[in-house]
């Protein structure tokens, strides 16, 4: 197969995968900058969203007209999944993180405990087997196949939905009161508090948005591949790589980082074709190496603020 064909095929797939990663990385970056710690439970939060959507879809059913091969019921279930994920995050914040007074490292470690609990509860309910949404799989879109691009309408739906959510977030951040307050808190929490912003409110909204986006990402990941209790944790490090590449503290950095890392991971097989002996199985490893390089060379990432002392 010609290199250009493979390139286009991988790039198209990469776009879908990146959409999912972006939904995760934005959430992680928001939480990192406003709640102030690296949330190791973020991957499993995506898993929660995926399974919540699965259950909701089972209840709502696949009736109704379809958009891009996805029944209306799926979108309803998706919304439910997002809401449930946000609720779970709020409960966790209230029960677990808020009462702790131990600094960001302590919170990081605690979030690992939270991640295990999310995963354990899902596994109790669903065992460790993989599942799929009860939606018919689709053939690739015909006209594109001759260019080597093999994507289905579902993939298009994922990208469009992700873009919609991201645009919605952008609008919220730039043009609403809440968004203004969030940006102010992320920039300088003390100044924000001094100017009368209720930090607590902002924090809670951050969790809602961050977890909600992650939940959506999880549901799309389940649609793109399949659902398994480990699905979110497997992506966690990739999402961290995206956030670090983009720069903590910058939502737009997280978007860019998500796109870049998602593409790097998806297009790794291209390396073997051009003679570099790194196989597709090293895709995630490659992302981690990129992450470490960024930390060495430019820890603030592409768009983040310069990092102060440790």
């Amino acid at each position, binding site marked *: 197969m010609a290199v250009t064909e493979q390139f286009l095929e991988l790039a198209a797939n990469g776009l879908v995968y990146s959409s999912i990663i972006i939904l995760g990385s934005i959430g992680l970056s928001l939480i990192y900058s406003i709640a102030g710690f690296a949330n190791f439970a973020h991957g499993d939060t995506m898993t929660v969203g995926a399974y919540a959507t699965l259950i909701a879809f089972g209840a709502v059913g696949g009736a109704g007209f379809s958009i891009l091969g996805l029944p209306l019921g799926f979108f309803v279930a998706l919304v439910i999944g997002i809401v449930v994920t946000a609720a779970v995050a709020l409960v966790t914040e209230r029960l677990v993180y808020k009462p702790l007074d131990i600094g960001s490292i302590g919170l990081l470690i605690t979030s690992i405990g939270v991640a295990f609990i999310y995963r354990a509860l899902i596994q109790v309910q669903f065992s460790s087997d993989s599942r799929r949404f009860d939606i018919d799989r689709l053939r690739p879109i015909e006209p594109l196949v001759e260019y080597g691009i093999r994507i289905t309408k579902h993939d298009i739906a994922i990208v469009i939905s992700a873009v919609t959510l991201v645009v919605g977030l952008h609008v919220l951040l730039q043009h609403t009161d809440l968004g203004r307050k969030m940006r102010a808190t992320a920039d300088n929490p003390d100044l924000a508090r001094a100017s009368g912003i209720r930090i607590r409110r902002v924090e809670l909204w951050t969790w809602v948005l961050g977890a909600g986006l992650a939940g959506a990402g999880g549901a799309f990941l389940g649609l793109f591949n399949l659902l398994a209790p480990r699905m979110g944790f497997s992506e966690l490090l990739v999402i961290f790589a995206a956030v670090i590449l983009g720069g903590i503290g910058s939502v737009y950095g997280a978007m860019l980082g998500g796109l870049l890392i998602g593409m790097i991971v998806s297009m790794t097989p291209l390396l073997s074709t051009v003679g570099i002996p790194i196989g597709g199985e090293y895709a995630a490893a490659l992302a981690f190496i990129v992450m470490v390089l960024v930390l060495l060379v430019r820890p603030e990432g592409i768009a983040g603020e310069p990092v102060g002392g*440790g």
Partner: protein
Amino acid sequence: MSQVNAREYWTDMNRAEQGVATFMAVTIGGLLVAMLAGGLDPTYFLFLFGLGGMFALMSLGLNAQWGFTGLINFSVAAFFGLGAYGAALMTATNSPVAGGFDPIFGLVLGLVLAAVFAVAIGIPTLRLRADYLAIATLGLAEVIRTVILNERDLTAGSQGLRGIPGFFENWPVLSTFPEAMPGLRIEIIPGQPVVLELSFWEQLLNVSLLLVFLGVSFFVLRRAHRSPWGRVLRTIRSDEDLAKTLGKNTYWYKMQAFVLGSLVMALAGGFFAHLNLFVDPSNLDPITTFYVWVAVMLGGAGSNRGALFGGFVVVAIREGPRFINELPPAPVRNVLEGIVNVIPSVTVEIPSIVLDAGPLRLLLIGLTIILVMRYRPQGVLPPQRELIWPDAIEEDEKARPEMGVREAKTGEIDD
């Protein structure tokens, strides 16, 4: 420590220590009773003890990094795995690179690999601030695991390395010890004999090896901790800038602590290879890293005794679900039901949740982390004395670790 009077020793311990000592005594006593009564197989008990000691050993290693120096190292599993793979590659029957060598070579290879990779990981990460260090070490550990999983020509990949011999297989007396020992039949309770045979003596050898490793590591780390070198590490942990102001090359010290800890972890991995007799890439799964973190957190960062305690508790969490997969556990439930149902005409069934071992383990670990961080973040046995200036310490003070400087009598540190 200079006290030899047992009574004084007891009262000198603070409540936490007394609690732990009692707990350990009760647990060990209970297990011994179970064994002598024929309820718990001694060979299997030794196997579990071996696992516990292994986690304790890894905890000692992590303690040198996190407890002494404040390094958040999430690559524990990788160094454990390198130690195990070093041992396995030299001795396993299906090793693609060697095989059939004496286990000593395997141990050496494991330690060398650990040192090399510790430096390799340390170079990019030790300058990073704490949370970045955590993420980066986790990522690099995953890279190592991925390489081991995929480079089948070097490591046998996901098949794993099997047929690993016991550690003492070429030693003159010890290799025949298990067969030479007579099978013993101990019958304390008539009708419930305890049989100690070949497999028991084999495990006894393994456990002895572990105790040697534990003893050496404990001793070495304790000396290191109390030495001037250890003092610098403690300074770095609580205030790195201060250490720098004092003229110390903190990066270099951190690297040394990192390598030292990694060597101890690799030792645990080497032991594991000769205990389990089988090694595969799943041994490098990050969950092992988090088990060891829980052990250190439970025990108390900086406390070597605490690390030992934590190690054994973690094994209970890891292996317990194999036997008890209901919450509340069946014997407890039976007792409760027995009590409640004494009331005539009342038959109550205590509800229980049946859980598979896998999720139950995860649940227990997650809960342990959260509960420890919430209610006892300094751990059960935190080191007794603030560790910056050991000369400024009073023996009688029973303090929490963050309490600052104390007046001193001697330089003794309780570990």
